[in-house]
């Protein structure tokens, strides 16, 4: 790790000001991705701005019938939240299966989606639940937020403040875990709201994507059997030491079916 200046502002405006002044500033949430990156000396920021003391970024609440989760909510907070468990239990379950206990007690929803790791769990929930990402400047629709591998619609220095999830009738997540890190080799989040079904797949491709054939099939027949007739092409899917593209293609189907079963 190279040396840097560390700041812990108490408000969003102070954070923005510090970021503006820094030669190369970096926001820090739980540091779960950022600190390993620094340790491996893959980044060399001059200033770290810790978002941990900013009250505006915290909290989980119901607001106008939607679930609003502050950017600094930790995975363990989401997993344990009564509000989340009542409104979208599948989301609490997703959070409860991220990484290990240490990661869940430090990692945040804002850090996770800002990072846009192709194997992260939350992006599938954001997209399948058609959430909106609130930042200091604007709101960004789920379908517009994740733009590629480790890429998002966020502008330089744009701070995520909260994520707003509309309530779904049925929603669940199923993932096949990487045995070491427990990131998703493939994860499928399915959600049904009114007549509309959304299926978002993470881990399988460079970025989270909607599996539209499954959405159509499930809209017509909300059951795991509806997935049986579909096929997933391996072209363009990720291949790495953890799984080949063919294996991931199979998992897309299997995990989607399991998510539908879990959603009931």
């Amino acid at each position, binding site marked *: 790790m190279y040396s840097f200046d560390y700041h812990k502002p108490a408000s969003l405006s102070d954070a923005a000001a510090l970021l503006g002044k820094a030669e190369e500033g970096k926001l820090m949430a739980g540091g779960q991705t950022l600190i*390993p990156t620094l340790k491996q000396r893959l980044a060399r920021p001059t200033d770290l701005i810790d978002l941990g003391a900013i009250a505006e970024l915290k909290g989980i609440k119901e607001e106008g019938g939607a679930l609003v989760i502050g950017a600094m909510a930790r995975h363990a907070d989401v997993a344990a939240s009564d509000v989340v468990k009542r409104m979208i239990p599948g989301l609490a379950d997703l959070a409860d299966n991220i990484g290990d206990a240490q990661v869940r007690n430090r990692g945040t929803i804002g850090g996770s989606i800002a990072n846009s790791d192709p194997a992260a769990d939350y992006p599938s929930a954001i997209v399948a639940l058609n959430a909106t990402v609130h930042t200091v400047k604007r709101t960004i629709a789920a379908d517009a937020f994740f733009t590629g591998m480790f890429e998002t619609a966020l502008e330089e220095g744009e701070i995520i403040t909260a994520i707003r999830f509309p309530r779904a009738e049925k929603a669940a997540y199923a993932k*096949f875990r990487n*045995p*070491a890190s427990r990131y998703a080799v493939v994860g499928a989040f399915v959600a049904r709201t009114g007549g509309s079904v959304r299926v978002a797949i993470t881990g399988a491709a460079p970025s989270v994507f909607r599996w539209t054939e499954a959405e159509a099939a499930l809209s017509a027949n909300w059951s795991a059997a509806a997935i049986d007739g579909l096929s997933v092409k391996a072209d363009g899917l990720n291949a790495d*030491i*953890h799984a080949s593209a063919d294996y991931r293609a199979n998992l897309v189907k299997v995990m989607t079916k399991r998510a539908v079963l879990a959603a009931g």
Partner: protein
Amino acid sequence: MADTLAVGRGIPRLEAPAKLTGRAVYVDDIRRPGMLHAALLLAPHAHARIVSVDVSAALALPGVRCVLTGDDLPHRFGAFVKDETVLARGTVRYFGEPVAAVAADDLATARAAVDLIVATYEDRPSVMDPDAALAPGAPVLHADFATYERRRASPLPPNVCAETTIAEGDAEAAFAGCDVVVEGVFETQPQVHCYLEPCGAVAEVDDRGRVTIWSPCQSVFRVQATVAEALDLPMSRVRAIATMVGGAFGGKSDVTVQPAAALLAMRTGRPVKLVLSRNDDFLSMRTRHPARVRVRTGAMRDGTLVARTVDLTLDGGAYAEDSGAVLGFALLMARGPYRIPHVRCVGRAVYTNRLRAAGFRGYGNPQVTFAGEAQIDDIAARLGLDPVEIRLRNAMRTGDRWVGGQELASCGLTECLEAVRDAARAVRRPPPAPGRRRGTGFSAIAHICGILSTSAVLKVLEDGTLTLNTGAVDLGEGSDTVLAQICAEALQVPVDRVNFAVPDTDGSPYNWSTGGSRVTYMVGRAVTAAAADVREKLFAHAADMMECAAIDLELRPGGKVGIAGVPGREVGFRAISMRAHWAVGGPVIGTASVMFEGGFDPKRTEMTGDGIGRLGTYVFGAQAAEVEVDEATGEVRVLEVWSAHDVGRAINPLAVAGQIQGGVAQGLGYALMEDLVYDGERPANPSLADYKVPGAPDLPPIRPIIVEHPEPTGPFGAKGIGEPPVIGVAPAVRNAIAAATGVRLAVLPMTPERVLDALSAQEERSDDGTGD
């Protein structure tokens, strides 16, 4: 056993409180006045000529005290082939090979200096597996191989560092008379030792120019000998002291970073600490030998095994290290624990541009046992026999002879097999959920405990308590505790009266190594012999003091010598030792040296190359594993493992159970997930974020079963248990998957994707009508 004071009792580890409270001192905890910190530059190529290494910018960085390159360490070392230097000279042979070492005032400066070293390389074609290495015209890793000093100087083909044959009877001819002959090719992967504590050393030079090295290691004596060789020093100028060891498993058997730390200390005149980061440890240390094992086994219709041939190719990586011995031992074990009269086992260890392979818990045995025990199940399936029955029918028994002619003085194999079978079959579970298939698999194993020489010094202190010094390093398996128990039992004193000395080449008597499951058995023998020596000397004093004949004396619990049959007539160790120290005869010190003598019966057995015959006493065990296979993902969930081992006599049943549980855990990692995958020339997963070692949440219930057939030569009948529990796990799991699904896997690790592919292939075959 009610008649014992210390032996047979599951007492907790002597060092447990220190470890649990964080007070135990590991190498990274050591701080010496004026100490410098060191870091290594690792090669970014698997095979390259080093054109130049420019260290000027690194040396110019403030705080940098010394930079070493290969030119500073020209001496080659190696236990079987002297093919390795501390830092690469002229050629790098694996991705991650150390090229330079820096010592600086602090670690950040040392690492920054490493970044400033400009090394230029000329890439060479690499050979990343034995097939490539053995192909005609393949790039040769060690062009000067013929000039290297070797333990056995027979000519070898290019890129081969050892070749061995062990044979008895006439296997080829015997196959002709068999009812069935089954053949298979099995492949195993590089498993990383993954001790919790990465390798490291602290070195310091004293005012007489002698270097002292503190390090986690398996033998302070091997560190001393190898550092002396690598630095071209007399051994008397090198002192090695063991620190607490955070696991080793064979990975700290040879030197790790001690020579580089020592030379940096000698050059700077200051203490130097060199501790590897986890990443550098992954890249520059060792793995288990990847293996390809071709096995043929012939049997009669009733299941009687008649003949077996084994052709083994070990990938030794870039340097020979212990490959010759691993090969020889693997071939000695390749017949399996069965009465098979005709065997021919041949093999070779091959140089490739990978991380050097080394001894790793099991020492070549897990590879051949995976193959051999998988094949026993395949034969049973072919003949329609029960997999435990076929093993029992052929199992070795006390009095049988191993390959090489050694007679088995104790063998509880059949009892181990029956124990795991009965335990596994007694379990009742609700049926598996739809889409999941369940099965139970078995394996039988043999191993040795023994190897070479060791010694012990037992001093009676003035107050009659004891200091036991054996030079044996406890790697975390609990040997300090077990040896103290043996000593306490032998002299009938409470365990807390025995002080266990830290292994130190200055003060400790020679001990070959903590390896080969040998410490309880071999060092235990030295301890009982040293205790007998002490007892004899104590008795001589007591006889004088009580005016009786020594032959009438007996030990009494609590450190007393009494006249047999005369209660109350006794003297304490304290009184005896006071007399010895201050009046008559001088201090009481017991000593003993033991050797497990080698050799084989040449009339019976053919042996070439690094063939090994008598090496130790044989130990036996059996495993059962119950698994559930997910048909949609290929994921294998192990539900429970039973592991029975004949340990002769459990000196400490708690420690034996711990060894079994830890070994099974490591075996499950080997079976299902651990694999250092290469992406071309470089390891793709050199970190714990990508290389999976099973942790507590990943493990099923593991049921140790202790079987005790006392070994006549062992201390209180004991034999070793360090390695055996890891050996039979992979084949038991493989056979369980076969029992559950019918697919017979031949490649480790058995990842979900491999299992799913095999399930799909089986489905296609049965769709074609070609399935069985």
